[in-house]
């Protein structure tokens, strides 16, 4: 019992440390007095950190100093390798694209998982109803056999990755450009180029009949933290996972995000997921977003160049004729 309490206290301390600004840092403000979060931010440093914690780490959210040092050593070796212009004679050149073009973190991640609550870093149990929801074919499917374009995930179809899928770190395209105006915050996300326009203040959410892939967002300031509450999602379109993967969430979903600038170039980002029709309990994700020299969002007109849709369907039809 004593151990359990100690663990609980430790995890609460850790959770509150996530959004603490270091002493001496004064968050900048806009000319009209709001906290200033503007700029292009990326979650690249957390590329590869799993959404759900590997059970080997138990309730441990943070890597030890030694583990971080090992990860940094590996990261540096990788960076050195990346910096070569051409494949060296001793490089293990493959006939497969195992040496892909992906974006890279600039420092080692501190966390063992993106999920910070529950304490074990695992997604809470799904409801019986959630388990019946169909998941579209995604990039991770090793044996897809689509009968129609509608069988693919909304990401593969270049439609949306949902709110969570648009900000969780993936292997490329993690840019988040924040632009502010009096009464509004806008976040332009590179991949699938979602632009979230977030009105600030106390205006009520849209009526219950009005629903969308990215939901209806409302923002407010709590001290230096931007708090965004999003509701009015369509039922069973995207899930809380990388690129909107995972079991599709329901029309009862409420997402509460917190953006806190904790250092000049770091926003601590937190996402609370509450969807009683999908998960047994609310849960929480957190990770940092950083600003990097020269980093910018690039154009991402996905649908226009999505030859993969046609090619995958054509491949499935060719298989049927064999």
């Amino acid at each position: 019992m004593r151990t359990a309490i100690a663990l609980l206290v430790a995890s609460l301390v850790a959770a509150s440390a996530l959004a603490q600004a270091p002493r001496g840092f004064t968050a900048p403000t806009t000319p009209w007095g709001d906290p200033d979060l503007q700029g292009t931010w990326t979650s690249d440093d957390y590329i590869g950190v799993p959404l759900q914690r590997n059970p080997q780490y138990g309730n441990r959210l943070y890597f030890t100093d030694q583990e971080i040092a090992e990860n940094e050593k590996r990261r540096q070796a990788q960076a050195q390798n990346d910096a070569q212009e051409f494949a060296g004679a001793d490089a293990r050149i493959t006939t497969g694209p195992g040496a892909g073009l992906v974006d890279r973190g600039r420092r080692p991640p501190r966390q063992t998982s993106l999920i910070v609550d529950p304490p074990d870093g695992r997604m809470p149990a799904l409801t019986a109803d959630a388990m019946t929801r169909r998941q579209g074919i995604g990039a991770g499917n090793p044996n897809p056999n689509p009968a129609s374009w509608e069988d693919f995930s909304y990401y593969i179809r270049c439609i949306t990755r949902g709110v969570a899928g648009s900000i969780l770190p993936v292997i490329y395209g993690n840019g988040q450009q924040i632009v502010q105006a009096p009464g509004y915050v806008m976040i332009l996300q590179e991949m699938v180029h979602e632009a979230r326009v977030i009105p600030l203040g106390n205006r009520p959410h849209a009526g219950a009949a009005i629903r969308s892939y990215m939901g209806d967002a409302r923002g407010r300031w709590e001290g230096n933290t931007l708090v965004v509450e999003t509701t009015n999602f369509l039922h069973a379109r995207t899930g809380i996972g990388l690129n909107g993967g995972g079991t599709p969430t329901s029309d009862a979903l409420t997402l509460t995000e917190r953006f806190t600038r904790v250092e000049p170039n770091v926003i601590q980002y937190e996402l609370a997921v509450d969807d009683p029709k999908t998960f047994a309990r609310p849960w929480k994700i957190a990770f940092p977003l950083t600003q990097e020299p020269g980093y910018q969002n690039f154009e991402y007109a996905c649908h226009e160049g999505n030859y993969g849709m046609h090619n995958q369907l054509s491949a499935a039809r060719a298989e049927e004729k064999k």
Partner: protein
Amino acid sequence: MMTLAASLLVTALLAAPLAAPALAGHHAFAAEFDANRPVKLQGTVTKVEWINPHAWIHIEVKGDDGKAVVWMIETAAPNSMLRRGFGRDSLPVGTEILIEGFRARDGANRANGSSVTYKDGRKLFIGSQGTGAPVNQ
């Protein structure tokens, strides 16, 4: 021709536990390409489609009968390639290259490109990581 700094992607070979995200490229490799049908295509670049979610290189390949056939080669995401120093001008029309990759499952003259080798022997990787394509064959 290039400031191809870093377009060399020898990378994933370092097998870091943190370097294997669950989801990666924009589609499942196995949905579109056949890992059991590797191809080697010697040809000349006729067009580069610098588009999302994946760029495509068009090359004209001369068959055994002397007739030219155009192949389309899928590469990684252009935004990532750009960040690693590979731009739309890195493969000008007329460049002679050797592509290694995997043929489309529907048998068309399309392939997922793994690497580009220039005439002088310099080699680059151009493919996507983690989409289910075979690695280290």
